[in-house]
């Protein structure tokens, strides 16, 4: 093509030359230099044309040098420079004329717009589509990951996954399809129908329905309102209780408890004045609580809480107090008997009190009229019932108690540990009291009935101290021996507890020791012995001893390594000879020092010696001590006998490692057994111990209970014969399956048909 063009332009040029030649001959218009320049240009052109013919850089320059017929709007070119035509060049002449402003604007707008990118080719587009689709799909699929993982790791899989629902027909359906045939059935049906018993819908009989309807609207409303109110109240109450329960402050609860006790007391007093029978009932309640307590032993420091507290009590003041409180409560609750019985003793009170007492007596008579003990005490005491009313005595013991409580703080701790003693004591005391009641008059008892009753409700510590005091009084008045007995163990037991307290702070080791010995440390242990024990475990001593030992070991090692002991020599002859180099020796020394802890050579020697000993055949000694001579402790069969009855084992074959100093060859390996043994650790196991453990735990029913056996032998996959197992479904595992069906989605998409199919379709439509 380009060659043709070039040829054409050449032809044109030659023609032009002819044309131009003419005016040369007839100089009519053109000046000289014009002609010159023309000639030059032509020459230039010719040169160019020629060069373009054969040259590599053929380019067609659509140059418009003169007016010609061939001017085309597509062929605009910038003059000569070979540059691209830029819009700005075209616009330059427009600048001056203002009338072309609109055109200019339009052109500017065109300039600012960018051309569109070329669309990607089809393969590229498809690839991108595929990639996006693949990413989406794999995202959808990865929701199955957890389920697949779970199923792979599951101990047991049961197929089919979805349970086939057994067809349960509702009772109405069954009944409707069933008819009474036998006379008995008919009879029963007749009866049922007569009474209008529901056959199909067994919710309400017609009679019940009628009665339901009978309730008037107002009544129903009222009832409903009532119910609503009750429900609301209940919910409020529950909410409040929940809120209060959440409060963690102990102090708050303590205060609340105290307030409650006070309130109860007040109410009781009030009741006594207003309604004695009700008060009596209250009393009975208290009595019952006491009985319950005695039966249940709830506050005997035997519960889980109490035990944990007992452990903590050594270190924790609060725990100690809590324990005491509980004990006191127990005492209070259990000692009611005396209080009650004592209350019966005093009759001479105010009228109100009398009233109460009468009632009490009556109640007692009615309740436990069978108990002759109680009766007797009641009557005998009632006779002597005197006015030992002591409103002023009441504060006095209280004050006493306060002072005592401070004194007794440390002393009472003993009781935490000594609940058995306590029990015994209380038993003893009860018997004493009974005796007291018989022997003594009411002047010994210190409280009036009402006070006693009130005391029951009083706070725990008060109660406790009071009982303590009464005990003391009794003890002082009557029996001193039991008191002494009781008090004797106290100081004894106090000592270890007290002793331990300062020591606890010392070291961690002490703590550990404590732990070891537990809370059941021997209390009988005398102090020096304990101390001796402790001394033995003294950390200083302990650290000293091992140090010494270690030192000894170090020295030993050096000896072994530097002074070449004969055993070592025989072992490592070549190495020692090599050691003569000093540098090497130094290095060796360093290594030895670094590994000073483990004496490998000696260990090995020892091991080998042991192995050799163990492999030696053993002699059989058949001597019977005492056979044919005297026998007994300290007597040995004579050497002669022993020699005679000793069967010497024959010398075995020489050991294979006899001449190999640094090798132990195990000759015990049983080839026959080895055939049955696993050589290489199987795959999932990482240590031979794991594998051994799995082998060593038996799974048979000989060694396991039936239940364990069943559990150990559950098969991994369970299938049911004759049941079709369907592929897993999203709904089965709780996933939402895609709501739209695949079909609808495809039909929503534009149909993709190959060209071939399109043709076929067209053909079909034409046909």
């Amino acid at each position, binding site marked *: 093509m380009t060659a043709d063009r070039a040829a054409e332009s050449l032809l044109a040029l030659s023609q032009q030359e002819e044309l131009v030649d003419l005016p040369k001959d007839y100089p009519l218009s053109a000046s000289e230099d014009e002609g010159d320049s023309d000639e030059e240009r032509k020459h230039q052109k010719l040169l160019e044309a020629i060069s373009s013919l054969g040259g590599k850089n053929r380019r067609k320059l659509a140059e418009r040098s003169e007016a010609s017929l061939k001017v085309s709007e597509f062929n605009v070119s910038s003059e000569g420079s070979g540059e691209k035509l830029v819009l700005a060049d075209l616009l330059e002449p427009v600048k001056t004329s203002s009338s072309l402003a609109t055109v200019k604007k339009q052109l500017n707008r065109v300039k600012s717009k960018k051309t569109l990118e070329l669309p990607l080719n089809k393969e590229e587009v498809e690839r991108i589509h595929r990639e996006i689709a693949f990413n989406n799909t794999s995202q959808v699929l990865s929701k199955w990951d957890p389920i697949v993982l779970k199923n792979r790791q599951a101990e047991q899989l049961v197929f089919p996954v979805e349970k086939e629902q057994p067809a349960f027909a509702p009772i109405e359906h069954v009944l409707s399809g069933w008819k009474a045939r036998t006379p008995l059935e008919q009879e029963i049906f007749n009866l049922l129908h007569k009474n209008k018993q529901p056959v199909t819908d067994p919710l309400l009989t017609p009679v019940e329905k009628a009665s339901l309807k009978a309730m008037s609207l107002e009544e129903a409303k009222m009832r409903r309102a009532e119910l609503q109110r009750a429900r609301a109240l209940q919910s409020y109450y529950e909410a409040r209780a929940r809120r209060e329960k959440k409060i963690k402050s102990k102090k708050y609860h303590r205060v609340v408890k105290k307030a409650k006790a006070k309130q109860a007391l007040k109410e009781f007093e009030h009741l006594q004045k207003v309604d004695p029978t009700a008060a009596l009932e209250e009393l009975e309640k208290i009595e019952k609580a006491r009985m319950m307590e005695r039966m249940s032993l709830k506050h005997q420091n035997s519960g889980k809480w109490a035990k944990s507290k007992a452990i903590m009590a050594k270190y924790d003041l609060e725990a100690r107090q809590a324990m005491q409180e509980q004990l006191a409560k127990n005492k209070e609750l259990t000692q009611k008997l005396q209080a009650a019985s004592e209350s019966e003793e005093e009759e001479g009170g105010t009228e109100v009190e009398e009233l109460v007492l009468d009632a009490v007596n009556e109640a007692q008579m009615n309740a436990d009229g069978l108990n002759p003990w109680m009766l007797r005490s009641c009557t005998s005491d009632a006779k002597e019932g005197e006015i030992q009313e002591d409103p002023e005595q009441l504060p006095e013991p209280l004050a006493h108690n306060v002072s005592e409580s401070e004194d007794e703080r440390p002393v009472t701790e003993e009781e935490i540990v000594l609940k058995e003693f306590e029990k015994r004591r209380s038993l003893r005391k009860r018997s004493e009291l009974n005796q007291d009641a018989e022997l003594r008059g009411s002047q010994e008892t210190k409280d009036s009935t009402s006070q006693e009753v009130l005391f029951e409700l009083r706070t725990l510590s008060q109660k406790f101290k009071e009982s303590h005091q009464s005990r003391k009084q009794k003890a002082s008045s009557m029996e001193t021996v039991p008191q002494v007995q009781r008090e004797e163990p106290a100081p004894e037991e106090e000592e270890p507890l007290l002793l331990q307290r300062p020591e606890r702070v010392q070291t961690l080791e002490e703590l550990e020791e404590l732990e070891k010995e537990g809370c059941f440390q021997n209390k009988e242990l005398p102090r020096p012995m304990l101390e001796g024990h402790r001394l033995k475990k003294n950390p200083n001593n302990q650290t000293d001893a091992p140090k010494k030992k270690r030192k000894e070991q170090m020295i030993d090692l050096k000896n072994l390594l530097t002074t070449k002991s004969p055993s070592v020599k025989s072992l490592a002859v070549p190495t020692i000879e090599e050691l003569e180099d000093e540098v090497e020796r130094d290095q060796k020394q360093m290594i030895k020092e670094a590994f000073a802890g483990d004496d490998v050579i000696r260990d090995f020697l020892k091991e080998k010696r042991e192995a050799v000993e163990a492999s030696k055949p053993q002699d059989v000694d058949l001597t019977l001590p005492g056979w044919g001579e005297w026998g007994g402790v300290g007597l040995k069969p004579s050497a002669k006998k022993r020699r005679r009855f000793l069967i010497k084992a024959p010398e075995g074959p020489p050991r294979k490692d006899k001449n190999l100093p640094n090798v132990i060859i195990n000759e015990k390996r049983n080839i026959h057994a080895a055939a049955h*043994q696993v*050589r290489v650790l199987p795959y999932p196991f990482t240590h031979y111990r794991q594998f051994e453990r*799995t082998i060593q735990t038996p799974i048979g029913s000989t060694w396991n209970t039936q239940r364990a056996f069943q559990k150990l032998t*559950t098969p991994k996959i369970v*299938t049911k014969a004759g049941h079709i197992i369907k592929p897993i479904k999203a709904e089965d595992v709780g996933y939402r399956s895609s709501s739209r069906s695949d079909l609808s989605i495809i039909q929503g998409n534009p*149909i993709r048909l190959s060209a071939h*199919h399109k043709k076929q*379709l067209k053909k079909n439509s034409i046909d």
Partner: protein
Amino acid sequence: MKVKMLSRNPDNYVRETKLDLQRVPRNYDPTLHPFEVPREYVRALNATKLERVFAKPFLASLDGHRDGVNCLAKHPKSLATVLSGACDGEVRIWNLTKQKCIRAIQAHEGFVRGMCTRFCGTSFFTVGDDKTVKQWKMDAPAYGEEEEPLHTILGKTVYTGIDHHWKEAVFATCGQQVDIWDEQRTSPICSMTWGFDSISSVKFNPIETFLLGSCASDRNIVLYDMRQSTPLKKVILDMRTNTICWNPMEAFIFTAANEDYNLYTFDMRALDTPVVVHKDHVSAVLDVDYSPTGKEFVSASFDKSIRIFPVDKSRSREVYHTKRMQHVICVKWTSDSKYIMCGSDEMNIRLWKANASEKLGVLTSREKAAKDYNQKLKEKFRHHPHIKRIARHRHLPKSIYSQIQEQRIMKEARRRKEINRLKHSKPGSVPVVSEKKKHVVAVVK
């Protein structure tokens, strides 16, 4: 004088009813039952031996076809019904309990290339060499009625495979491209191609039902998304893949039966490396089917045997063969996971037990307990050499046996050469390619 007497509480030894087992008081003190490991070992050994003794997997052979059986299909609702298509265009429906053919149809001229049942079990589809897709009713025609298909679709090209959607009235065929058809229409609603080659098999994913997999004779496996009607990814293997099968319990796992004697289990999200390469066949693997539990699959091979592989193991746990069984073309695992069917060249369909030594029929509870116990024992002691040797021992026909030996030698030689090459070349210049990666040529996006 006080006489002491033994007295026992009858609750401890008296049965409540006659039907209860006698109570036997047991003392589980370990000192009374010594040698637990050796005793259990012996039990395990015996159990393994008995398993081999009772391993009689072959159940029945269904004969009646007059040409090689080319394809099999399971009935989705009935366990006893099986369909088979032969190379002479005949389709037969079998009753497995009676082991009899209940219906025979001359469906196509030439091969029946593929067949599938509709998910509801009322009809089935066949494709043949006569370029037609035919839909047939499952029930036999009534008396006097003619045996003819419900629908026939005449195509332009030969269809080589067909599979039905698991939930909807859609099926897919393959040939020159993968076509997706609505049952109601005579033209495909969507057809997908990627390159030009004959596609030999197409399979719908049973869980995520919009996914399809196909394998073509240009050695590649292509995955499609039916909803976006686009191919997703293509993996090119060393040799041609004959069939693929999706795992019915794990949505993204499928297994491809390859001409290079191996099977490849892929995770479809990461196609560049197969999850497991299953090796044991000594000739091209022609078909594969998953157990409905998704834990094992069975493969049929040109080497006249079928093998059962655990999904996560590269070696087979079982091989079935008989003297008369020729090249096995198709294989199916029944949907109760108890049996395996295979159709082979010599016109027979064979029925096998999936578990060779399993006792068929009802088991008493004691039998069941003993079976479970023995199974656990075998599992526990399976690493012990004697037990392992007995459990692994299979008799093989001479052809397969010698082939295995031969291939072992070849493999060893190849390995040796590789090692030598590695040893004698500049370190790093010869890359070490793992066995898994070796067979994947490329993954095309």
